[in-house]
């Protein structure tokens, strides 16, 4: 196999490590995780480190992101062991994020993270209304969530991100506005705001289908989204991706790597990689994952080698999620293809429909298109 240059960008990868444990699963969460108490976390950590070791030839990683599940559900010494191993191999990533569950984020954990060189925390605050947290199945209180942010700030983290969820049944435009106000008042640098989605197989989705509650109607969901963009924008958080907002200079480098379609290495159960032109996803099953790693084989549940056209389309779809959109020169440099020519038909249609804006050097979704981005992006999903 002799891949064309575009498939092997000589770029430094990002590193993602998935900790598939939680104390309790939240009702809405579609990510892979299991309850910690039914597992021995040390054997998993051993497997994570073994998988990590397979990339010893990689000279450097650009960013590190430890996510989950909740990484903070691990005993702090195990989490420290993982971080230490990463830092030992790649001492100077440009950004090192750990996701934290506010219920598990106390001074001890935060100072450990700080001590090991983590420089960005992402806190799963989700809401500032107790009822909404209860609806989502979150165990922590509003006060605890606020306190976790304070702890991080007190202990010197100058890059803190929080997650918010809107369109939670029972919420209103008024309650969402209060939520946004509370978030902005916290003094964090980064906010991710997600419309509540009903992921297949989650208890929340089952309950919805059973008619146990009324979902927020589309019109209100849309208005909440628009409100987030406007409110956060005026509070100094510029939108840089569909669901992400940051103070100037605080966009998440790691996640930007995904949307720029740069390579990344994923470690752990259910983690995805885009490495050496290949997209793989590990088994979303702790036992199977450990077994495979211990046996010395790979742990891929899925493996695909996108061809040239698929790479073009992936790049287009991912780039277009960002407010910067497609950098035409960079696109051509990476793929060898003129973006405007390759996607002439959908560009023309959506430009006419007011959903895509085209300038000399960039193509991006218009503000109006953001809330309906999938209906536009699908036209870039294949040639």
């Amino acid at each position, binding site marked *: 196999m002799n891949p064309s240059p575009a498939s092997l960008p000589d770029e430094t990868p990002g590193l993602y490590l998935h900790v598939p444990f939680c104390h309790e699963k939240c009702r809405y969460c579609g990510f892979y995780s299991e309850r910690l108490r039914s597992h021995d976390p040390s054997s998993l950590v051993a497997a994570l480190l073994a998988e990590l070791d397979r990339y010893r030839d990689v000279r450097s990683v650009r960013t590190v992101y430890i996510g989950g599940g909740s990484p903070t559900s691990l005993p702090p010494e195990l989490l420290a062991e993982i971080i230490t191993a990463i830092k030992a191999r790649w001492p100077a990533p440009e950004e090192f994020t750990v996701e934290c569950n506010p219920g598990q984020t106390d001074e001890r954990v935060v100072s450990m993270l700080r001590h090991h060189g983590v420089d960005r925390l992402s806190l799963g605050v989700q809401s500032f209304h107790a009822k909404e947290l209860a609806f989502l199945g979150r165990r922590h209180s509003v006060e605890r969530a606020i306190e976790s942010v304070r702890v991080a700030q007190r202990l010197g983290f100058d890059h803190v991100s929080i997650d918010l969820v809107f369109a939670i049944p029972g919420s209103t435009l008024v309650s969402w506005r209060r939520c946004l106000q509370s978030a902005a008042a916290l003094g964090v640098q980064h906010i991710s705001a997600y419309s509540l989605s009903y992921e297949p197989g989650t208890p929340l989705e089952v309950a919805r289908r059973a008619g146990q509650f009324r979902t927020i109607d589309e019109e209100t969901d849309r208005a909440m989204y628009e409100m987030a963009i406007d409110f956060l924008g005026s509070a100094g958080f510029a939108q840089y991706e569909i669901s992400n907002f940051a103070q100037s200079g605080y966009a998440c480098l790691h996640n930007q790597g995904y949307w720029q379609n740069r390579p990344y290495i994923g470690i752990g159960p259910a983690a995805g990689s885009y490495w050496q032109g290949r997209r793989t996803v590990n088994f979303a099953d702790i036992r199977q994952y450990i077994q495979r790693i211990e046996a010395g084989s790979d742990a891929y549940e899925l493996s695909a080698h996108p061809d040239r056209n698929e790479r073009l389309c992936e790049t287009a779809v991912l780039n277009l999620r960002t407010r910067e959109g497609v950098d035409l020169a960079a696109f051509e440099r990476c793929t060898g293809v003129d973006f405007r020519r390759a996607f002439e038909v959908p560009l023309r249609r959506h430009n006419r429909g007011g*959903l895509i804006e085209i300038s000399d050097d960039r193509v991006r979704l218009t503000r109006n298109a953001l809330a309906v981005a999938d209906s536009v992006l699908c036209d870039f*999903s294949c040639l």
Partner: protein
Amino acid sequence: MDTRHIRNFSIVAHIDHGKSTLADRMLELTGTITQRQAQEQLLDDMDIERERGITIKASAVTMEYQYEGHTYMLNLIDTPGHVDFHYEVSRALAACEGALLIVDASQGVEAQTVANAYLAVETGVEIMGIINKIDLPAAQPEVVAEEMEHVLGIRRNECFLISAKTGQGIGELLDAVCELLPAPEDRSDEPTRALVFDSHCDPYRGVICYVRVFSGSLKVRQKIRLMHKGRSYLVTELGKFRPTMTPVEELGVGEVGYIVANIRNLADVNVGETITEDANPAPDPLKSYQPPMQMVFSDFYPGDNTEYSKLRAAFEKLALNDASFSFTPQNSPALGFGFRCGFLGLLHMEIIQERLERENDVDIVQTAPTVSYEVVTNDDEVRRIESPSELPDRSHIKELREPFVRLEIITSTESIGGIMKLAEGRRCKLIKTDYLNPTRVMMEYKAPLAEIVYDFYDQIKGISRGYATMDYEFTAFEATNLVKIDILVNGQPVDALSLIVHRDHAEQRGRKLIIKLRRAIPRHQFEIPLQVAIGGKIIARETIKAFRKDVTAKLYGGDVTRKMKVLKRQKEGKRRMKSVGSVQVPQKAFMSVLDTSD
């Protein structure tokens, strides 16, 4: 060959009564093909035909059979078995002296049996009644024989009992063909006259005509003349289907075979054409039968992802081998450039549509089929229109006429009530009922074609639990009280959604139609009003609400492949869409014009 030892015949039957199986058995028994060669239903050589179990194009095969010490030449001319292809049956019969009319021993006489019998009688060929599938446990040959006598006038004691599947009775049947069917007249000393009863286009040899020689003979290197077109050609090849094409030097009087003569396009030689010798032409052509009449029209537009020129190329390819299909460029104010296509009937249309998509990678959007109408203008000019959009302004119309058919339905007595109720709602007028036996009845209606062309057959099948069969034949255009319904999508009239209906049903049809459209057209980023106008007046409105949210909130590293798949599926859902202004209208919306259900 001595004409006394030639027999030319067709097999005609209702669909699934065993026509092709009988043909296969005859080919085997005469040694024309071996059993091993006997590919299932050899005579149907198109995939779609085989899949649908029907024969679309007639074809001919020559067999040899020993009877009473003589070698007989048996020419079997195959016919299609669907109502849309009546004219193919009649053109096959025009080349024959006899017809074998098959009836399934477990099903009895069906609507198409009757229609085929009428055709045979009109053509003047000798009819042999055959009762097939006598091996079936449900076979009731005596009852069926009685029906045949009662309805078709074929004497019950003269019916042949066979099983094409097991081969029972086939030898006797072949003997009877030699014994009972008339031989062609010996007109070998008259000037040459040969009937072209079918043709197809071969990529290498050009047009291959299927011919029956009625007088004189055809020879290789002979100069021939097409009597209707008046053009002359040199015969380069003559032959017979045995069943593969086998060249011969001469086709004598009474014989059936093919002719190749450097004719390039199918349009250069009409089926029904008479071929004569250029140097010694016959004074008159053979009596030609009626050319097929296209009764159903539909517009085809390239979908948003296909180019017009590609669609044109695809149609050209299809038209090469189907002279009864036509297409003309069409420019719709709402849908842009496309083609108006004419078909013999709805099945014919479906077959063309399927071939179009299967054999060409084109994304098409098709409008609801419509029948043709006759408009009498104020200055007494009579015009044929093939689409509601061609209808002139009301003030110029003196009279609007629609096509009527003679409709025959055969069904069980317990479903009579339901069928009569349906027919009444469709403006059909009962002409007569005739009991075939105490449990089966044949009903004859005068029916507007527009009311029965689409789902009527499915409906009577449903009412009769699959029992009823129907057949129809065009009779005449007649004036009725028709109006045009216009549909506005997002304020823009969409000609492809217009329809012509009887005034009494117009308002209700219009209201139903926009409700169906509301369900069929996907939501857009803006609200879409749908309106019904009759005679320029808006009588009803529906609204398609805008969709406000369609976005994946989270997309990070683990989900890229999965998400791309989801997006691709979403894009796939946009296939067969046509932009009407800024509204994308899917194929099924155009078809909802036809749906009269609630």
